[in-house]
């Protein structure tokens, strides 16, 4: 067999194989995407949905109480998407002069899901890496997240904080966050 001809044949075969693989991949992608959309790949909200009010819990520099602020979110079909919107608003920070932010800079909400009343909230590593530290700030971070979720969403009974998808010991070396949190403390209404 002529060498060049053989190479040509090989080339065509390779092209065919590549096309088949790419096709299979595209079909696979399409299938999985459809599958996801059945569960939770809805966009968090669409702007033509009804607007509802929720309460965010921020820190206070003067005491260990929380300062609450009201925010508007879209009433999405899935309540978990409402919870996600609430946490995104919490990350944005407070408007009140006296309130202090509770989520460290550059922290991203990776995922939030609710299962049988247990909320699992997964943040990016910045929540720990950029945390100012201290028992006070750490308590504020945990308390605000937990309060914001439990007080606004009746289907959430307790909250497990995760970082980069994992249960970790502490955010900044003080409070044990290996277990879920429940209940709340006193709230000061400065709104």
């Amino acid at each position, binding site marked *: *067999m002529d*060498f060049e001809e*053989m190479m040509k044949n090989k080339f065509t075969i390779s092209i065919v194989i590549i096309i088949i693989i790419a096709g299979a991949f595209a079909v696979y992608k399409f299938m999985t995407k459809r599958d996801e959309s059945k569960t939770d790949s809805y966009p968090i909200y669409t702007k033509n949905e009804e607007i509802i009010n929720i309460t965010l819990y921020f*820190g206070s*520099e*003067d005491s*260990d*109480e*929380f300062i609450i602020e009201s925010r508007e979110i879209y009433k999405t079909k899935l309540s978990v998407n409402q919870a996600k919107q609430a946490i995104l608003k919490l990350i944005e920070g407070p408007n009140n002069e006296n309130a*202090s*932010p*509770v989520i460290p800079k550059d922290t991203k909400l990776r995922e939030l899901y609710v299962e049988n009343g247990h909320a699992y909230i997964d943040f990016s590593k910045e929540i720990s890496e950029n945390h*100012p*530290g*201290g*028992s*006070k*700030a750490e*308590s*504020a971070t*945990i*308390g605000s997240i*937990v*309060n914001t979720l*439990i007080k606004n969403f009746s289907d959430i009974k*307790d909250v497990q904080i995760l970082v980069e998808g994992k249960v970790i*010991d*502490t955010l*900044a*070396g*003080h*409070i*044990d966050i*290996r*277990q*879920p*949190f*429940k*209940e*709340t*403390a*006193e709230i000061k209404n400065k709104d």
Partner: protein
Amino acid sequence: MEQFIIDVKKRSNIIIYVIFMILAFVTLTKAYEITISIDEGHFIDHAEIEEYDNKEYISIDDVVRVFRMVKYWHPNNQKLVLEYEKYSIEMIIDNTQIIVEKDNNKKIIEINDPPLIINGKIMVPMTFVYNNIASMAGKKILWDQKTKTLKVNKFVYNITNLRAQTYKNFTRIAIDIAKEMEYRIEKQISTRLSVIIPGGIADTLKCKSEINDALIKEIISFQNKDDAVIYIDFKDKASTYKSFLLTNPYRIVIDISGGEGIKVKNEKYETTLPVVKAKDFNTTSIQVKEVKEVKEEKQKISSISGGKQEETNKKISIIVLDPGHGGKDPGAIGPSGLKEKDVVLKIAKELKNLLVKHLGTRVILTREGDYFVSLEGRTHTANFNHADLFISIHTNASFKARSQGFEVFYFAAGMNIDPYALAVVMKENSVMQMEEKKSLQMSDIDIIVYDILQTEYVKESKNFAAIAQRALDQKLDNRNRGIKQGPFFVLRNARMPSVLVEASFITNRKDEENLKSNEYISKIARALYDSVIKYKKDVER
């Protein structure tokens, strides 16, 4: 193309010829070639084995190649140095002692047979490859006699971890296993228990403990052909043991108790759980249904023991101070760059001096310098030394720079209980009860329950927290933020009264300026010193 095919044929002829020659050579010299299959045949290599004194030896050059080591040979003193990943291995010809260095830690290890020079080649015993290099490489090495193949594969451990925990009158060892496995325990010598797990592959780096408590010196594990072996070395040969297998997850639990005559230590029994008010604390709590079970358990204990509250002569003689953070973890950082880890170390050192000098107490710091210590490590130091008081020293931080002042925390019992750990302990208890119904000592259950709930010391911890808060208030001209409770990691497993002091806010400009001055540091140390005196008086009264 055809040219190439012929080439290959020629080459394979040569290979066959060479193999034939080698085979011929083998029959003459008692040396033979072996195949080395690495990572399930991912790489194939060959080496030559020579028998010397009925022991198998392999050329060091083959070992270096297969494991990708770096070799240094010092002919003057017959010294061979191998560098392998994080290890440096020093061997001397004809010497069975080798030095293994890792992370600046040197260890002398006795190997079965010495390295030798045979026909001008440096040879090491195969046992050295099986045992020592295999464990450093995290590989399992199997020798298949039939195919003369040495299989070097990644370990798939089925014995993954070992935990040893000191309790007041026994030590519990839990060995995590991946599936249900047979095991036997032998007492070949009086001070050593051998746990033999046929078919076990132990992660020897994790399955060990330098516990060194009252009962056990240390625990090591190693591979003995197809068995994993764990040695538990006793301090007292009269020690006894009981063992049981637990499921979900599978683990072997071995409890070591002292010999006869070791009596149950005084334990306090409370008939009810202290009610925890999370009033002052702004994180949250979790109610676990197991708490009820524990409560019942405790009431049972109490009723058996008559519900007596035995007052014992308590002494404050060992204090563990825990300067927070350290090393890679700077803790909170002030606006002008002052680091929490440096401030708290200063406070701890000064407090230690005061206590040692004026009170004569033994004081242990969880870290003496600027290095990282894990949170578990900190509590372990206190538990291991049977400290009477544990003080964790921190400086506080807030998101905005305005917060100021000092506060003292103690553990919130009933908050944030680990339902899993509790369930595990309850399960281990019930098994123990079933197996050892007659000889079960009340304190066994009691101690474990207390360990989990942390209620035993809450009253005393709160007492010390209040004393410390008052003392800080007297010494510091700053805002008194009160005493508070929370699920603090370092306080959680402490088996003694324990507090966490947040001395001032390093994130506040004014507080930071204060924390920079030695006077202010001395004031904090002095306040904590005063509180220890007061507390000691209260307790020893």
